[in-house]
Each structure stands twice: as structure tokens, then as C-alpha cells.
């Protein structure tokens, strides 16, 4: 299958193992989200993929069509690093042309595409302006354009949404989706769960350099998030707790409660067990958000991560 294959990469700085035996596959046409708290090793993984730092062990392979590429296919990769910047004193269009030139895009074509991207982001009148005249958000858009101007087959975005306003975030999301549907393998890192949850086809959750969870979102939720049932009811009702089915009952608010079901308990079956005379205003059944899983894992610390790792993950991918 085409795409980016990361196999057991490990990176140690001094006595600290920053990335420990991480493997995943970013398929073409899909968006893979690399999630983890600050310092989990996300940027190090992306830098190893980009060949900026070398892994101590493991391999990174780019596969496209029948050919397995030797080394890093610079021309087919688009990269938006976490540390953002542009040459301050250079003009916007010139930077885009320079970076496109490094990717071997013919000059005329590069110019057309650069202007197209600037138009898309409403920055066409900044083409001849110097970078120092751009706002931070504008500069980030120019960087994004620079990363994808050459229509890369592999797109690596390190925290692409950080520092963007909601409107720009939506714009970026749409563009990233468009990249994937045009056949690129997109790998993005983030700590913003809500965005990743909406955008990514698959996620890879990392904590302290180790894989914690990976797979497509629904199967992860099925695995790590038992159902929760939120109920709004009149007064301070005495809600029953059947410890067979219920792991916890939380009071969210005046008259609002949350049941967290035990794993494998079908939600409808549980709802039927609620007292018939309960005066319910609203009732909702949901899976935990990625955010909840993330926080649980991150707060659970290393022992939790190891505990999770010990569990058979089954066929999630």
C-alpha cells in the first residue's frame, strides 16, 4: 500500500529516550493525526520523518506506486515545522518562489500557484510586501502555502492550527481535507483534540515517546471510551446505581447527571433499567471525546500508558 511507513523508530538524547519504538502508517488519501501532550515526542518524530534528525533505530519509508523511494523524496514532501518563520526582510512572493524552486517547480508554474494560494487566503495584495509587514496569522498562511505549493504526495504538518483564529482554522481544515482527497498522505500533529477529532481519519496517540493508542477514531472510542449517558431530570431525583453496569455517576450540574457505563454495557439496555417514573427532561448517549481519552491517558502518567500498551489492541487499523 502507498504512503508513509514508520517502523520502530527510536531516538535518544543523552540518557533520555525521547521516542521509543514508534511505528505507524500514513496512507495516501487519508489524514493521520499524531496526538500527544507537550513533550511527548511529536516534533522529534516528525523531524525524523523529514530526515532532519536521524533515528537511532528503526526506519522511515516512503512508498508510492510500485516504487519504494530511496531516502527522503524531498520534492514530494511538504513540511510545515512547529517553529515557524520566514525571512523577515524578503518579499512574500519571492520566498514562495524560492521554496518552490527548491522543490523543482518550474518558475512560471510556481508563480501561478503562489498567486493562487495567496488569493485563496486573501493575501494577494501582500505578494510584493515584505514578510515583516505580515501579521502572525498571515505569515502562517504563507508558510502553509509554501509547504503545499508543489502539490506534495506526503504532507507533514507540525501543529498547523496553533495560533490561528477560528475562521482561519476552518480554512486550514478545508485545505487539509482537500489535500487528502487529492491523494496526499497527510500527517499532522496536534494537541487540539477537537480539531483532530473532526479532521483525522486515524489517530496515533503518543505519551512520553511511546505509542499509547492508534487506529481509526471509532474503534479507539469503542475500545477506550465506554458509553456515557447524560440525563437532565426534575428535582434532586435519587438515581439508582447498578454497579454491575455503571462505573460511575457524576453530578454535572443542578439536575444534570452523567452515568459512565462499564465497558461492553449496551447503552439502550441500561436506559431501560432506569425507573419508569423518572421525570426526564433530556437524555443523551455519547462516547467520550478524544479529549477525555487524551486527558485520561496523559494524567494517568507513564504507568497508565504502559498499562494500556500491555493490552492487546486488536485489529484497529
Amino acid at each position, binding site marked *: 500500500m502507498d504512503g508513509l511507513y514508520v517502523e520502530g523508530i527510536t531516538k535518544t538524547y543523552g540518557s533520555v529516550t525521547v521516542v521509543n519504538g514508534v511505528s505507524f502508517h500514513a496512507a495516501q488519501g487519508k489524514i493521520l493525526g499524531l496526538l500527544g501532550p507537550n513533550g511527548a515526542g511529536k516534533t522529534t518524530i516528525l523531524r525524523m520523518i523529514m530526515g*532532519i534528525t536521524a533515528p537511532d533505530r528503526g526506519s522511515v519509508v516512503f512508498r508510492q506506486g510500485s516504487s519504494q523511494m530511496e531516502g527522503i523524496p524531498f520534492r514530494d*514532501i511538504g*513540511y510545515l515545522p512547529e517553529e515557524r518563520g520566514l*525571512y523577515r526582510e524578503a518579499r512574500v512572493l519571492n520566498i514562495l518562489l524560492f*521554496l518552490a524552486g527548491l522543490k523543482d517547480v518550474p518558475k512560471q508554474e510556481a508563480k501561478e500557484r503562489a498567486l493562487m494560494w495567496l488569493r485563496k487566503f486573501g493575501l494577494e495584495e501582500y505578494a510584493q510586501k515584505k514578510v515583516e509587514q505580515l501579521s502572525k496569522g498571515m505569515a502562517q498562511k504563507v*508558510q502553509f502555502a509554501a509547504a503545499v505549493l508543489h502539490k506534495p504526495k506526503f504532507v507533514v504538518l507540525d501543529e498547523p492550527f496553533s495560533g490561528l483564529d477560528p475562521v482561519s482554522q476552518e480554512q486550514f481544515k478545508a485545505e487539509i481535507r482537500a489535500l487528502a482527497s487529492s491523494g496526499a498522505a497527510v500527517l499532522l500533529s496536534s494537541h487540539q483534540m477537537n480539531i483532530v477529532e473532526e479532521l483525522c481519519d486515524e489517530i496515533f496517540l503518543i505519551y512520553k515517546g511511546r505509542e499509547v493508542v492508534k487506529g481509526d477514531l471509532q474503534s479507539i472510542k469503542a475500545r477506550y471510551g465506554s458509553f456515557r449517558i447524560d440525563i437532565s431530570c426534575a428535582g434532586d431525583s435519587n438515581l439508582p446505581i447498578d454497579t454491575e453496569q455503571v462505573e460511575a455517576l457524576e453530578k454535572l450540574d443542578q439536575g444534570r447527571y452523567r452515568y459512565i457505563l462499564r465497558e461492553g454495557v449496551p447503552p439502550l439496555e441500561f436506559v431501560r433499567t432506569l425507573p419508569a417514573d423518572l421525570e426526564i427532561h433530556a437524555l443523551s448517549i455519547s462516547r467520550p471525546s478524544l479529549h477525555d481519552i487524551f486527558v485520561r491517558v496523559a494524567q494517568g502518567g507513564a504507568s497508565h500508558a504502559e498499562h494500556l500498551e500491555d493490552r492487546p489492541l486488536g485489529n484497529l487499523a
Partner: protein
Amino acid sequence: MRNTWKIARWEILRNLTNKQFLIGLLITPLIMGLFIVVPALLERLNQPVATTYYLVDDLGVKDTLQALLPENIILEQAESGADLERLVQDTKASGYFVLTSDFITSGQVDLVYSDRNSQSMNAVSRGLTALLQQLRLNLSGVSPQELAFVTAPAQVRQVPLKEELEPQVMHLAVAGVFTMLIFFLIFTSGTMLMQSALQEKRDRMAEVVLSSVTPNALMQGKILGHFLLGLIQLGFWLALGLPIAIAFLDFPILEALKAVNLPVILLFGLGGYLLFSALFVGLGATMEDLQSAGNAQGLVIMLPMLAFLFLGPVMTNPDGSIAVFASIFPFTSSVIMMLRSGLGAVPLWQMLLSAGLLLITAFITMRISAKIFRVGMLMYGKNATPKEIMRWLRYKEN
């Protein structure tokens, strides 16, 4: 190599469209030109002005003395007993003196001056000395011809043992100018390279560029780019400076240029550039900004200056052991060898040894710098300590 070239072109274009660079390009020859033109102009302006001295001439020697003085000093006869001070002030003369009959025996004269023009006063003193000698010799019956014969200085010609060792003033002057020019270029290009590496980090561009080209290509591109920029600068300055120098300097410049040992200057200029550019670009990668350069980094920045410590010994004794050492030691050899080749023939073995060592050192420095560069370019927010740099050197490459 194509990527190296693209980076080089970007560096060149970026600088050629940068105001600071262009201003520097113009200001530098302007400053250098001022150093050449202003003294020359001053020299011309400083043509001796006519100065007048009043003389009370009891001895009747005014014409004799006038003949012994430079043309710009004019003697005016004054009556004895006149108000000489008044006279000098009214006519804006430079001073007066009285020659009485005592002069021949005592040799004493008071030169009373109104403005202290040491040049003309010295001339008057010399004239009076010559006059005194004449007067005294006249008394003892010696003729002026005899006097001239007796007082003529020895004429010493310095003749070298072998023809080829003839001191070539022209060679030396041109070698000196070229050495300075090339040293200046090496130093400015090196500093610019260092700043370029710093800028890459400051603007957080290193990672983006490194996702398209290898660190080696980036480093080589920068070095090549600044080399070409240096040539552009040199060409520009020569085109601007040569006509001015020819117009203002009393020196056969075109003749002298033909005498330049071009291969030596090219070889050692290039070698020196490669060595110091590699050093500076690697250095730039270890720093956060120029102001925060640590002690060790400051020392490295000063390294090209090392050659200047040897300038004195080399000039006085171009074949001495210090000169030989300094022209072989790689961190001083580029400058010193260019200079020595202007001072006279350098033995071939020294030339070859020096060139070989310089190129090998440049190559090794390049390799070390490349390792430092690839790690340092991605380090933000602090200066690297020597310990950290040592650790980078041990990292394996891709």
C-alpha cells in the same frame, strides 16, 4: 549540486536586494577612497605658502641667505632700530630676526615668530646653519665648492647578491594592497556568512529549507553564494577604485598589477576563504545572536586576525623562521604567504606545503562545520556550549 546553486543564488539575490548590503557596497570604497584621496588632496593643499621674515642685516648676507632658503620663504630687509614687532604685525609676516656681527662667533640668533609655522622656521634654521658654515669657512679661506665637497653625504646603494632577490617595491605594495583587500573580503564574507546562518535560525527558516535540501547543500550553498558575493564586491570596488587610485595616487598601478603573482593570490585567497567561511558558518550555527557570543566563540571570530601578529616580523625578515612558520601555519598562511610572495621569492617546498596544509585544514574544517551546522541550525533560543558542540560532533549522520 543543483540545490547548492539554488541556495547560493538566493543568498546572492537576497543580499543584492538588501539595502544594508548595497549601502555597505558603496560606503566601504567610499571610506577606503577617503583614506587614499583625502591625504593626497591634503598633500596638494599643503603646498608651502609664501612666508615672509624680516631681517635686520648687519652682515650684508641677505642675498646669500635667500639663496640658501626654499623659494616660499621670503626675506625682507628691515632698518635696524625700526619697530620690528609692529612691522611684522602690520604686514602679517611670520617673524623677524637680527643678524649682528656676533653671529659669526656665537652662532646665536633669536628667531622671533608671530605664527608658529614649524616647517618654515626649520627651513630658516637650516639656512642659517648653512650660512654660518659658509661665513666661518670664508674666514678660514675655504671656498664654497670645497665646503660642498666636504659636507656631501655618502651615497649608499643597496645591491642584492642575486638579481632575482632585488627588492621589488612595486610587488610589495601591490601584494600588500591585495592581501589587505582579500583579508578584508574573507573577514566581511565570513561575518556575513555567520549572520546568514544566524538569520536562518532567527527567522526560523532552517527547518523549512532543510525539508527541501540537505544540510550540506544548505551550508555549501551559503559558502558558494557569499564567495560569489565577495567577487561581485571585489569587482565593483576595483571598477570604482582603480580609476580613482590611478588619478590620485602617484604610482604606476597598471604596471604594478602586471607584476602581481596572481596564481599565489588566487590559491591562497581561495584557501583562506574556504577555511574561514567554513569556520564562520559553523560558528553561526552555534549561536543565538551575535551579541551573546560566548568567550570561545569570540576567540574563533578573532582567529583571522592572528595573521596580523606576524606582520611585523614577516616584513622585517621575510625569510626568517617566524615568517616561514606563519606562512605554513594554516590559520595565518593565506595572508602571510600572499605578503611573502610580494616580498621576494618563496621556496617552492614552502609554497606547496603551505597550500597543501591550508586546503587539508579547510577540508577538515568543512567536515566539522557541516556536523555542527546540521545540529546547530535546529537549536533555538540559546548558545551552544563547547561541551554540547563536542557531543554534536559524535552524532551519526543520516
